[in-house]
């Protein structure tokens, strides 16, 4: 896919509209999903996706192919999101209902209700992480980027990405333990 994206990108640089359209088709869902999870609503996510692609076409001439097109596109989306965050003082994220709705209505690999409940809680706890760790988790786990790709998007070292993920998992584990002990007390 990466090779295909690079070929399409090269053709788009030469002015091929069809290739650019194909790139949009391939990546708009991933970019929308990334921005939707971060922004918290569909309208903002759609606007941010549009801005991301607009910047992509503007910066297409300066694309040096030091990273894959997917990584480069995620980097643009990340900066678009940061700009949007700076303009808004909004610190909220998507509510539990959204994750619940996603879990209820979207096709998920989780077999039973207990596992779905566990996933719902886990996603909610991810949103309680600080911004740096949260964005690292989003890019690596939700967007399926490798450690190096995540590091390139965030502009940090791969070792820093590993550290942030370990910290995030520690936090999630602690919250899980707390949640289990609270449930046991309620049962008793």
């Amino acid at each position: 896919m990466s090779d295909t994206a690079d070929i399409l990108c090269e053709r788009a640089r030469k002015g091929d509209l069809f290739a650019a359209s194909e790139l949009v088709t391939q990546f708009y869902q991933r970019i929308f999903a990334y921005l939707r999870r971060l922004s918290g609503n569909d309208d903002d996510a759609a606007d941010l996706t549009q801005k991301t692609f607009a910047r992509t076409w503007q910066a297409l001439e300066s694309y040096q192919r030091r990273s894959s097109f997917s990584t480069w596109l995620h980097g643009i989306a990340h900066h678009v999101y940061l700009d949007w965050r700076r303009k808004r003082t909004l610190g909220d994220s998507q509510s539990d209902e959204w994750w619940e709705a996603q879990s209820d209505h979207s096709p998920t690999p989780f077999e039973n209700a207990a596992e779905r409940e566990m996933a719902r809680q886990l996603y909610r706890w991810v949103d309680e992480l600080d911004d740096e760790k949260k964005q690292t988790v989003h890019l690596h786990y939700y967007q399926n980027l490798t450690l190096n790709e995540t590091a390139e998007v965030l502009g940090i070292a791969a070792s820093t990405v590993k550290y942030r993920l370990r910290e995030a998992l520690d936090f999630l584990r602690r919250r899980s333990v707390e949640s289990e002990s609270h449930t046991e007390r309620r049962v008793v």
Partner: protein
Amino acid sequence: MNDTTMERILFQAPKPIAPLGLLERLQAEIALPTAKQATKAREWQNPLRRWFPALAFSVFMLSCAIMIAVQANWNTNLKNENAALRATTADLPKLREQHAALEQAQAQHDELVQLRRDNEEMHQLQAEVAQLRSLPAEIQRLQNENQRLAAAPAQNGSATSAATFFEEAQAQFERAQCVNNLKQVGLAFRIWAGDNNNKYPTSLVVMSNELSTTKILVCPSDKARQSFASLGFGQFQDSMSSYQLTVQPDDENFPECIIAKCPIHGNYLLADGSVQQTNPAKPQYHEVQKDGRWYLERINP
């Protein structure tokens, strides 16, 4: 919940679905940088801009070629000049010979000028001699007058003083005549030397061609040799001359040495052709011999 489970759940997070119409909007908003490409294409259409690197290199190479050609031209010119200088140097001995000949000609010219001056002086002396020659007639007339006056008894005392005056005049005339003779002899020496490798003759008879007559070889005051003055050079001998020769062949290089002298008047002919007069009654000079040659030296008071 362990880490593996948590990671698995996170990797399987639900993916929000994009709203309908977003794809169409995104595709409609595609704005590829075709304007820049057009500008770039226009830039390449300018042939000068496109070929500038090649042109610059060509100009540089052309400049180098011109410089090399100019240097080669200079080199050729220098070689030609060098060859010309070598050719000139080859003629150097010949030029030196020509220069030596020129210098010799210049010396001869100077000598000729000197001879002309001497000749003029000789003519002047001859005129003086002619004037003096008329003097005996005048003396004779005055003697006659004197004798006539001597006949008168009252005038005896003044006749003696008049005779002394005439004798002195005669002596002065003869002395001048002697100087003139020596001058002509000196001139003859120099002319003869000019034809004989600058060497002076050691005999008077040898240079008979340069002497006009034997009369100039006899001092007018030398009464004993007056008869020789009428002889031709065929019979004349050096011993018949009143003048004593002290000349040596290379005396021309010693202009102040004596080559002939009149023992009666004390007139000396020097190697440079000049005549030095001395008064035998009151001598101011005396003869000195140095390195086999005689010189006049002033007597210290």
